[in-house]
C-alpha cells in the first residue's frame, strides 16, 4: 500500500493510502473534536464536528470521511473552524431538549464535553423546545428522544457489532427520529437482545439504564475495542473505561 505524505498544522506526516485524516490525526495526538465517530464502528460523517480546512479546497471537509492524499496541506484548528464547530454544537443544543442540570448523563455527556471544548458560552439560536417523547417500555433501558443528537452510534453498534439491527432512523430533516424495528415500542421489540451496547455507546443521556437518577449514568465504551479486536485479530485486550 502506497504511503502518502501530508502536512497537518505545519508539520509533515506520512500515512497509509486509504486512511482518513482523522485516523492520522489521532495517531499523532492532534486533537479534532468528534461526536458521531466512534472507534470500532463504521464512519458516517453525520455530525460534521471534525471538519478541517484543506488548502486548495474551498469548502470544509469532515476529517473522518476524507481520505489522505499526497501533498495535502491541512489545518485542524483555526478561528474559522472553531466558529463552525461552536455553531454545530449550538444547533444541536437548540434543536433538542438538553437540560443538563437534571439529566441522567450530566457530567458524563459527550455533548456537554464538546460544548466546553469548543467554548460554547451561549446559544444564539432560538431553542425549538420540540415536543418529544420518552420510551420506557423496555424493562432495563430507556430511550429519551429529548436528548438524542441523531449520531446513529446506537444504530451502528446494534447492526455492526451485536448483529441485531434493532434501531433505525425514520423521518426527514428536523423530524428525524431513532426508531425501534418498524417504529414499535422498544419493550415490544422481537430483535432486541437486551445487551445494552447501544446504551453504552450513546454520547448523551438519550439512552440510559432504567432507575438511574441525575448524573448517575456513566457510559463505559471499553467493551467495543475488546470485542472488535477479539473478533478481527483473535486477540484479547484489556478493557478500559474510556
Amino acid at each position, binding site marked *: 500500500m502506497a504511503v502518502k505524505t501530508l502536512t497537518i498544522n505545519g508539520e509533515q506526516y506520512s500515512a497509509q493510502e486509504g486512511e482518513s485524516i482523522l485516523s492520522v490525526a489521532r495517531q499523532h495526538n492532534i486533537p479534532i473534536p468528534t461526536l458521531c465517530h466512534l472507534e470500532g464502528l463504521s464512519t458516517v460523517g453525520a455530525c460534521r464536528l471534525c471538519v478541517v480546512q484543506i488548502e486548495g479546497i474551498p469548502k470544509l471537509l469532515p476529517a473522518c470521511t476524507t481520505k489522505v492524499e499526497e501533498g495535502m496541506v491541512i489545518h485542524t484548528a483555526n478561528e474559522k473552524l472553531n466558529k463552525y464547530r461552536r455553531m454545530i454544537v449550538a444547533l444541536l443544543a437548540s434543536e433538542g431538549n438538553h437540560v443538563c*442540570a437534571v439529566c441522567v448523563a450530566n457530567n458524563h455527556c459527550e455533548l456537554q464535553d464538546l460544548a466546553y471544548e469548543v467554548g460554547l458560552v451561549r446559544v444564539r439560536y432560538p431553542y425549538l423546545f420540540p415536543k418529544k417523547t*420518552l420510551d420506557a417500555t423496555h424493562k432495563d433501558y*430507556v430511550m429519551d428522544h429529548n436528548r438524542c443528537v441523531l449520531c446513529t452510534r446506537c444504530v451502528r453498534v446494534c447492526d455492526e457489532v451485536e448483529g441485531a439491527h434493532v434501531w433505525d432512523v425514520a423521518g426527514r430533516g428536523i423530524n428525524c427520529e431513532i426508531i425501534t424495528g418498524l417504529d414499535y415500542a422498544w419493550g415490544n421489540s422481537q430483535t432486541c437482545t437486551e445487551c445494552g451496547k447501544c446504551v453504552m455507546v450513546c454520547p448523551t443521556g438519550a439512552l440510559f439504564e*432504567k432507575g438511574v437518577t441525575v448524573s448517575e449514568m456513566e457510559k463505559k465504551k471499553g467493551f467495543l475495542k475488546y470485542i472488535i479486536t477479539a473478533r478481527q485479530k483473535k486477540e484479547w485486550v484489556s478493557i478500559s473505561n474510556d
Partner: protein
Amino acid sequence: MSDIITISPVTRIEGHAKITIHLNSIGEVEDARFHVNEFRGFEKFCEGRLLWEMPGLTSRICGICPASHLVTSAKAGDDILSIGIPETAEKLRRMLVLAQWIQSHALSFFHLSSPDFLLGFDADPAVRNIFGMIAHDKEFARRGIRLRKFGQQIIEFLGGRRIHTPWAVAGGVREPFTKEERDKLLEWYPEVRDTALLALKTIKKVHETYIKEISCFGNFHSLFVGMVGQKGEMEYYGGNLRIMDSAGNIIADNIDPREYYNHFGEASESWSYLKFPYYKPLGYPKGIYRVGPLARLNICDYIETPMAEQERKLFKQLAPTTEAVNNSFYFHYARLIELLFAVEKVEELLHDPIILGTHVRSKAEINKMEGVGATEAPRGTLFHHYWVNDDGVLQKVNMLIATAQNNMAMNRTVRQIAMQFVEGKNIPEPILNRIEAGIRCFDPCLSCSTHALGQMPLEISLFNHQGELLDRRVK
C-alpha cells in the same frame, strides 16, 4: 373617594410578591391582599418524565429548601415502588431534613427577620438588613451565619453539594455517610447548640419590646395542620396528619398523608397565582388553616429532645389553656424552638452507629400506579403526589406546598396589620415594613409555593374604591 396602596416588591422574603391595601371612601382600610405574581408550571412539565428523575427535577423548584422537595419526592417514589428503604437510608434522610430545617430557620431568623427585631421596625431601610446587622452586632450575625453553615455543611457531607443535591432517590439514598464527616459535625455541635439557645434568648427579649406589633401580627383563629409521630411527638419526616382547631381541640387525627386530598381542597383567586388551600369539611374560605412551626408546636404532644421540650412548655404558656397559640408573631418563637430541636436531634443521630451503615439503597420496579410522599418542610407540610403508567412515566403530578397552605392566613395577617397601622393615603416606610414583617412571620417561600421563578421582593399599591392606583412603592 377610596384608595388602594401597593407595596411592591415585598423585601426579605423568598420569592416575588406584592401587597395591595384597599381604602374605602372615608380613607379607612377595607381590605388588604397578598398577591403572588409568579408562575412556573412545574406540575405540568414533569408529566412525561420518569419517576426516578423526579427528586432531581422537583428539588429545582427551590434554592432554599431543595432538600425538602428531594426527600418528599423520593418518598413518593418509595410509595410507587412499594419499597421499604434500608434503616440507614431512613436515618440519613431524616438528618437531611433536619439539616434543611437548621439552615432555613437560621436564614429566616438571623438573615431576614432579626434586622427588624434588633435594629427596629423604624430603622433606616438602608441598614435594616443582614449587613446592617453585621455593623450592629458582628458576633451575633457571625454566629447566625455559622449556624446556617452547619445545616448546609450536613447537606454537603450527605449529598455532595449544598444546593440541589440529587442524593435522595426512590428506594433510599445514593451514598453512605462517613465517620470522618460525622466526627467533624460532632466537633462543631456545641457551638451551634449555643447559637440556637442565643436565638431563643433574643426572641424572648423581642416579645417584651414589640407588644403593640405582637397583638395584631396575624392574631386570629384558624385550624393548625401538621404531622406527628405515633406517640404524638413532633415529627418531621414520617408520621400521620393531625388537625387542631384554634381552641386546641384535635378535630382529626392519625390521617394517612396519602389521604390528604380527601381533607384539603385548593381554591383559586383571580388576583394571585398562589392557590388557596382549605380544609374541606369547613369549605372555602372558612376552612383556613396554618402549617409550619406554629402549627407543629401547637399540635404535638411533646418534643423528644430535652431542651426543646422545655421550651415547648414555655411556648404553650403563651396562650390560655383553652386555646392554641393563635398569634402568628409566635411563628418566630416556634421556629427557633424547632431549630433547637433539629440541632439536638442531629446530635442524637450522629451518635447512632446505624448512620454509618453502607446498605443505603433498595431497588424495585413499578408496583403501584399512584404514590404520595409527605414530609415536614421548614415552612410546613409538603405533599408530592404522582401518578405513573406501568413503565414509570409520570401521567400527572400534584404538589401541595407549605407556603400555599398558609396563603389565607398570610392574607388575613396583612389585612389585620393594615387595619391597625394604616391611616390615610400616605403610608410612612416603617408602617410598610410592619406589613412586610407580618408576611415574614410565615417565612414564605414563593418560588416553592407557586413553583414560580424566585426573585426577590415586595411591592405595595394603594387603590381607591374605584380601583384607581393612588400610590405604589417598589423596593
